[in-house]
Every structure is written in structure tokens, then in C-alpha cells.
């Protein structure tokens, strides 16, 4: 028995050495790979900005075949962290920077409206900002209280960490009220839109550019949710789409940022439903 055990231990030790060797070899070859890879621009962050950035990047890469732009999601928080740590050349954010993040270089590439959407079958056309806040704080629980049918409101929100959620919280809920924990949570603009399209008693919020004919964007205090009204400032729910970087970009990265801010770049974003940027670069 004893002899058997010793033998087994010996075998295990030899095998362990083998494993370490295999691991070391794999690591070696992996790091070899990354050294060889082309230098390009790494862009990461908000999944709200991502689809638009991808479209512009595609266009840019057609014009500059030598540049490789790698665009990844992860969310606004991830994008800002990645820019701070230098992991990404550009971080994308779909909310304004917090005070402690203001040291970063940033530029507003476009603005996006935030639409409060309901099912097209819902007779409600117009809510005030206070009513929307009341619905999301669950002080208003039936559609009847805001001029609709006598049924319970199904509140739909985005998940914690989402730029769209934090923009909605900043713009609608304010500092003192919170989105009710009983709200249904969906993890993308598309999922919220689909649910509202299916459920006549649902209310949700999505990027204005993603509103389609399956859902109805509500007027806020009598003001229609349109690109023009966001641009002229009468529709209050809008948020910046930011490019964030550790320091002012140079070289390839600067060229890409310049392209997205140029008339051509802005036109692409406008065609996709965004509102052109009014402001220039920040710090």
C-alpha cells in the first residue's frame, strides 16, 4: 500500500512538471503572437456608442486601409477605465464625465436623444417629466393616473452600469428619487424596444435613434421627441456621446477623431439618427 502511494505521488509530481511545461510553452507562444500583431487603434466602451463608432470606423478604414480600428463594447464605465489605464486609445462614453473623471481629455462626437417609449396601442401621447419620474419611482402605478386605461404600468429599465440607465437617472430621476427595484430589467436597447412592442402596458426608455414604428415615443410636456427638438434644446432628454482619452490624441488616433468630427463623419452619424455635436474638444 505504502509503496503504491509513493509511486502515485512520484507520478503526480512528474505530471505536474509536465503541466507547468505545457503552460509555459502556451504562454510563450501567446505572447509571441501579441508582439507580432499590427498596431492599430483600440476603441472600447459604451454599447450605445459602439454601433455608431463601428459605422464610422468602417468608412474610415476604407479611406485609410493601413489603419486597423478595433471597436469593443463593455459599457461607459469600462470605456472610461480603459482610457484612464491606457488599455484603449479611445474610451466611448454615453454619459457626461463625473467630476473625478474630468481630468481626462474628451470630445463630444454627437448627441443622442433619450426617448420614453410605450406600445403604439397605448392611448397616452404625452407625459410630463414629473409623471415619468413618478412612474419610474412607482408613485404612479396605473395608466389611468396619467390619462390612459385602467391597467397596471409595467416599468422597464436598463441594468446597473448601463450608460443609458445612468443618463436616464441623471436627467429624469434626479438625485433624490431612484428607479424602483421592481422595474423589469433588460440588458440592451433592442430588448427594451421588443418588450414594449409586445406589451401594451409597458413603458421603457431607449436611444432616440433606435425608435422604430413598433413603439411610440412619448411627447414630454408637449414637446415631441425629434432630432430637431433635441438640437434646439426644447426636448430635455439628451445626452452626449463622448470619446475619452488619457491625453490629447496624436498620430493615427488623432486622425480618426478628426474624421469623426469632420463634416463627413458627422454626416454619417446624422444619417444613423444621432444629433451632430455642437461642442468641440474639452480638456
Amino acid at each position, binding site marked *: 500500500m505504502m509503496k503504491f502511494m509513493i509511486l502515485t505521488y512520484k507520478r503526480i509530481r512528474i505530471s505536474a512538471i*509536465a503541466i507547468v511545461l505545457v503552460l509555459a510553452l502556451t504562454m510563450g507562444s501567446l505572447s509571441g503572437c501579441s508582439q507580432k500583431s499590427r498596431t492599430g487603434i483600440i476603441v472600447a466602451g459604451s454599447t450605445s456608442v459602439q454601433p455608431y463608432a463601428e459605422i464610422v470606423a468602417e468608412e474610415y478604414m476604407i479611406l485609410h486601409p493601413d489603419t486597423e480600428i478595433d471597436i469593443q*463594447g463593455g*459599457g461607459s464605465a469600462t470605456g472610461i477605465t480603459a482610457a484612464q489605464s491606457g488599455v484603449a486609445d479611445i474610451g466611448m462614453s454615453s454619459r457626461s464625465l463625473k467630476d473625478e473623471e474630468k481630468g481626462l481629455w474628451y470630445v463630444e462626437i454627437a448627441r443622442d436623444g433619450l426617448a420614453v417609449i410605450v406600445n403604439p396601442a397605448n392611448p397616452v401621447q404625452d407625459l410630463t417629466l414629473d409623471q415619468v419620474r413618478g412612474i419610474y419611482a412607482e408613485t404612479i402605478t396605473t395608466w389611468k393616473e396619467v390619462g390612459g386605461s385602467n391597467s397596471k404600468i409595467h416599468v422597464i429599465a436598463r441594468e446597473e452600469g448601463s450608460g443609458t440607465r445612468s443618463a436616464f437617472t441623471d436627467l429624469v430621476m434626479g438625485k433624490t428619487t431612484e428607479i424602483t427595484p421592481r422595474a*423589469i430589467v433588460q440588458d440592451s436597447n433592442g430588448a427594451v424596444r421588443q418588450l414594449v412592442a409586445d406589451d401594451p402596458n409597458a413603458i421603457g426608455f431607449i436611444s432616440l435613434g433606435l425608435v422604430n414604428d413598433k413603439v411610440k415615443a412619448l411627447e414630454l410636456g408637449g414637446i415631441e421627441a425629434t432630432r430637431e427638438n433635441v438640437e434646439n434644446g426644447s426636448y430635455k432628454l439628451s445626452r452626449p456621446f463622448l470619446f475619452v482619452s488619457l491625453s490629447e490624441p496624436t498620430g493615427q488616433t488623432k486622425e480618426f477623431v478628426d474624421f469623426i468630427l469632420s463634416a463627413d463623419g458627422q454626416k454619417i452619424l446624422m444619417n444613423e439618427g444621432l444629433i451632430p455635436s455642437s461642442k468641440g474638444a474639452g480638456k
Partner: protein
Amino acid sequence: MKNTKERLSERVFLAIALSTLSVLALITVFIIAKGVPIIAKVGVLNFVFGMKWAPSQGSFGIFPMIVGSVSVTLGAAILGVPIAICCSIFLAEFAPVKLRNIFRPAIQLLAGIPSVVYGFWGVIFIVPFIRNYLGGPGLSILAGSIILAIMILPTVISITEVSILALPRYYKEGALALGLTHWQTIRSLLLPAAKSGIVAAVILGIGRAIGETMAVIMVLGNAVALPTSILDPVRTLTTNIGIEMGYASGEHQEALFATGIVLLVIIMILNAAAQYIVRRKRSR
């Protein structure tokens, strides 16, 4: 010569087997290392029994999700286990060979359907059905339980069937010889004798249900609040990780790993219970 070859091949297989173990160890160590700091900071009781989950404000309570996981899994067991046991009795005792040869692969196929397909089907069929006929938003404990009940069928059916078939033949022959009917034999002899196997099957089914993520993200609604009825949306431990990981960083991410620790502990307890029950039966 042959001896060296034999020993070499033995070692190669041992090395490969150990590498799977080391993967388990790596993952466990990583999850614990990532998740423990936040549990330590918040406190185990505050983390496990906290009612409020708002990572951006520093509130990390996962109790509503534990309740969510338990209620959805319990619902799945209540709906799925009776069907599964009846089905396996039918397969083991009543089904003619031809029928059995159709049923078995079909049930295996049920296990092979990707969970995202189950979820999609749930969103398209079950959720609107609940919304239109039972009320509420449709995304609910009930929708999740129905989906999971179907998903645990293959596990519970095949293990239950095997444990009925594994009973010695003379049990049944003796009972029939004593004049019991077929149904009496099943009810009073085969089922009690296969009890531990059936319990193990149910526990493994529950383990499968509690760990399922993708399908339930799509049909549960993911609200972080204590449910008051089976038509309310809930969030489970798995969906909490699945839905928030994309955006999480810093403490938020640690809290998701900590959620993973709680889940790991629950699943380990379930698996250990299943193995204990099966072993106890064998040793008798």
C-alpha cells in the same frame, strides 16, 4: 520496452486528467480571490441577506436574487419532476421496445437544444401567453419555471429510468409471482426501491435548473425585488452575473464574482447531497 511504453502512456493520461483538475482549481481560486474582498467589506450577512442591490451606490445585497433562484427552481421542480418520473416509469416498465427507441433519443435531443433557443421560444410563446391570459408583464417566475421544467426533464428522466432498470430482476418477478398487478408492483416495490436514485435525479435536476442562465435571463424580467406572486419578475443569482457583467468594473465586478461564490456553494451542496444519497444506497 513494452513496460516503458505502458508507463509513459499512463503518465500522459494522468497528466491530462490532472490538467482538468487544475482548471477547476484555477477557476475556483480566481472566483474566490475576486469575490471575497467585497464580501469581507460588506459583511457576509449584509451581502447574503441584504435587500438592496445598487452597485453604483455601494449597496450589495443579494437576498432578492437568492429568493428568485429558489422560487424559480422550486417552480421548475414542481412542474417538471412529476412529469419526468411518470415518463421514466413509462419508459422503464410500460413502453414497447419500438416506442422506447423513439422516446429515448428524443429526450436526449431535448438536452441538446441550446438554452438560448429555449429562452427565445419562451419569450415568443410562453411570455405573451402568460401576459394575455394570466396578467402581469408575462416575464415572471412562472415563465422561468416552465422553461426550466422542460430543461431538467432529460436529466431527471434518464437518471430515474436507469435507477429503476438497475433494480434486480427478481424483485419484480417475485412480486408478480405473489399475485401483485404490474401497477401495484411499480408503486409498492419498484419506486420505493429506486427511491434514492430518484432523489439523486431530482437533486441533479435542481442543480441544472439553478445554474441555468441564458434561457432565464430572457424570460424572468430580472427585477431585483422580492416577488409577491408567481407572475412577478425576479432575478436569479446566475442572471445577475449574466446581465450586469458587460458593464461591471471595480467593486461592482467583485460583487458579481461574490454572487458566483454563493452560487458555487449552493451547487456544491446540491451535488454533494446527490452523491451522498447515491453512495449511501450502494453501501447498503
